[in-house]
């Protein structure tokens, strides 16, 4: 498919376990974003990758969260020692270049990973 692909679509795990969420952006897109949406909340920015630049990690809520992007393509978001408040839908988006997201270079979102911590 040509869109942003996220896996798994659903993940249920026990509190204290580590989880890895994967994002395959659209081929050629240099910008990649991770967001999460908790119940009843908006999209909360987590981390932003742009090309070979250092990622903007300003949205990561704690040091249990980390992300990497290998080869400028696939990204993995890792949550260590999960807590119940980590339960949310984790969304990945990519866009073709940096600068303002607009009609010429919109963010394309995946369908998200629904993470449930028991």
């Amino acid at each position, binding site marked *: 498919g040509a869109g942003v692909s996220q896996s798994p679509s659903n993940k249920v795990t026990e509190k204290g376990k580590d989880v890895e969420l994967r994002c395959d952006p659209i081929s050629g897109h240099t910008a990649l974003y991770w967001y999460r949406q908790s119940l009843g*909340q*908006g*999209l909360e*920015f987590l981390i932003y990758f742009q090309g070979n630049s250092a990622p*903007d990690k300003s949205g990561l809520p704690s040091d249990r969260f980390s992300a990497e992007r290998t080869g400028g393509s696939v990204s993995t978001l890792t949550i260590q020692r999960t807590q119940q408040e980590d339960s949310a839908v984790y969304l990945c988006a990519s866009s073709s270049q940096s*600068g*303002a997201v607009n*009609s010429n270079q919109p963010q394309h*979102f995946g369908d998200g990973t629904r993470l449930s911590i028991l």
Partner: protein
Amino acid sequence: DQQVKQNSPSLSVQEGRISILNCDYTNSMFDYFLWYKKYPAEGPTFLISISSIKDKNEDGRFTVFLNKSAKHLSLHIVPSQPGDSAVYFCAASYIGGSYIPTFGRGTSLIVHP
């Protein structure tokens, strides 16, 4: 502290009528504004955007209005169709924030046939 606020969690409209979704922001540095549409179990889809140098942008049935002095924008959908039923997110960005959009909590629009 929410910088982008959508104070109406839901809106119900009759098919064929106008839907007006509102959004307020607090950060005066925002200079680019976006609307996204989200269906259940899908990711958001970019809908329409507006730069702060404009006060109106139109794309088919969708028009976004920006009132900078009031720090307010609105999305008008006319005529509304049942397929427009979705959650609509308002977002704002600025160059100092690396143009990373800040999202509101969304408004759920239901268009009744």
